């Protein structure tokens, strides 16, 4: 009887200790902040309309509109588990509320080593008229050109050879190969980045606007300016140039005071 009592006491103590030692994992909200720059200089709506920018090809230009879509953000744990963030974000520089994406999706704490996302929508998500908020935002891509949604609307004016302002509308979406034949045009990004989530935090996704005109295609605005949506060559050049446009910036952890 004494033995039984001893073992019961020991077991109780053991369970008690192990429960105390095992830390309960917590979830934390993570937001995504979208920033823009022109080769490292911050670019915001305050810079709209200024002819202060020269692209790789040499055209001086201004920007008057910049909206783009980011979807399928995935954070990968060091053990390989992928955490897909629900939703998407239509970033509009003229609307400050769109510069931060709050998915309301707390993430269990831990160590991560990769951040991925899609510029635009992938084939599965890019469905005609599927997203009421994007429809009301007039973000649709004509079904005659493959349907779904724009990936980006980047507009402004450039100075031509006579120093006269001319419009450009660098709009990107599904590429039309020929009548009724379309090619997906989104870009998937994967960035290796070691970070830990152990508090609420924010991940910065950066766009270098100048890169749209640089790599690998040096963009000549005198040739490619407006009516680019049905232009297969222009659409594929945009997709190629997108590869160096985005990067991961600061990862900020909001430690408790």
């Amino acid at each position, binding site marked *: 009887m004494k033995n039984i009592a001893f073992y019961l006491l020991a077991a109780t103590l053991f369970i008690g200790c192990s429960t105390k030692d095992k830390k309960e994992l917590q979830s934390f909200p993570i937001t995504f902040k979208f920033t823009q720059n022109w080769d490292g200089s911050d670019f915001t709506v305050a810079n709209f309309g200024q002819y202060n920018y020269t692209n790789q090809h040499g055209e001086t230009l201004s920007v008057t509109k910049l909206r783009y879509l980011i979807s399928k953000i995935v954070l990968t744990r060091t053990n390989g588990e992928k955490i897909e963030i629900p939703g998407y974000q239509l970033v509009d520089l003229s609307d400050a509320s769109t510069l931060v994406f709050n998915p309301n999706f707390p993430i269990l704490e831990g160590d991560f080593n990769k951040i991925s996302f899609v510029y635009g929508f992938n084939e599965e998500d890019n469905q005609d008229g599927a997203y009421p908020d994007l429809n009301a935002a007039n973000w649709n891509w004509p079904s005659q050109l493959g349907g779904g949604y724009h990936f980006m609307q980047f507009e402004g004016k450039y100075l031509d050879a006579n120093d006269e302002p001319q*419009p450009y509308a660098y709009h990107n979406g599904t590429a039309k190969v020929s009548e009724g034949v379309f090619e997906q045009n989104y870009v998937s990004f994967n960035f290796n980045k070691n970070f830990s989530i152990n508090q609420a935090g924010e991940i910065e996704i950066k766009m270098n606007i100048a890169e749209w005109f640089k790599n690998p295609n040096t963009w000549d605005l005198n040739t490619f300016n407006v009516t680019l949506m049905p232009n297969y060559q222009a659409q594929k050049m945009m997709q190629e140039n997108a590869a160096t446009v985005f990067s991961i910036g600061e990862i900020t952890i909001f430690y408790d005071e």
Partner: protein
Amino acid sequence: MKKIIVLCIVILSIYSCSKSSESSTNEEEYTPTPVNLEIPTIFQQFLPAPTIPANNPLTQEGIDLGRKLFYEPILSGDGTQACASCHIQINSFTDPRQFSVGIDGSVGTRNAMPIFNVAWSINQKFFWDGRAHSVENQALGPVENPIEMKNTWSNAVSSIQATQDYPDLFKKAFGSPNITKDFVVKAIAQFERTLISGNAPFDRYLMGDSDAVSQSVINGFNVFMDPERGDCFHCHGSDTNPLWTDNKFHNNGMDETFTDKGLGDITGDPLDFGKFKSPSLRNLAYTAPYMHDGRFATLEEVINHYSEGLVYSETIDPLMKFVAQGGVHLTLEEKIDLKAFLLSLSEDAFITNPNFQNPN
């Protein structure tokens, strides 16, 4: 003496508590009849829920009162002009005159905007220049506007309060017979949110009725959606944005210089000079004349403007292409088809709906 004072305080406290709980009981007891908007099928398929502010839910009593007020001339300085004087139902709640005329004959500088689908004005910016930030806020302006109803709100409210029937109608709608300008604009806004248009022939075509429109209409829609021809969809909606507007502000190449700066007059930002809100293309059959200043009497003139008549100014929208040539130069056939398509977005039932007519 002290005891008497304490006793008085206690009695007063009990009395005031019982009064306040009585009044809150009365407020709780009263509940106007909630109303859900009848949302067109195509809106249900493609659009977010309508914007209804939490502090002004739709009720049958509120809508009925708003409708009565919309047609009520005593809101104006001399009792001759109502909202409906310049927002006429058979014209899709706009004014067929180029500029509306105020109570004393003063003439405005802009064409009255049509009123429908305001609950889907996503950015909630109203008027051609976006100066009002809610439907309620929009309803505030005309009463005191010196070239419109030329009244003061205190006078307008007093006039309504002095009538026999309005105090009771306000009590039914808002729980109090004491009329305020806040209640007046809330009621008018409730009525305006019921002005929904979403069942035109082209809507029925998109919903599967292939006989609802002609081949010319379909051809015109293709012109509308083609970036190399009409390229209208960037500002005016599409088959998946049945508002037929982006609710944003653009300079659409009408003037080289501006006497009316539109949005720029409100923001003060030179980048906004000459920008005006894109109107919906619904009900164009009834809303002539066109543009913010009503300069075009016909749809042909509008189409010709975009096709050949664009002029350059600093803030012109980059989507106004080939400005040096005046525009994209549509063929005559394309213009005819485009006009046919635009007219297919007009809904006869909207302008004859008895629920929107003068109840007075």
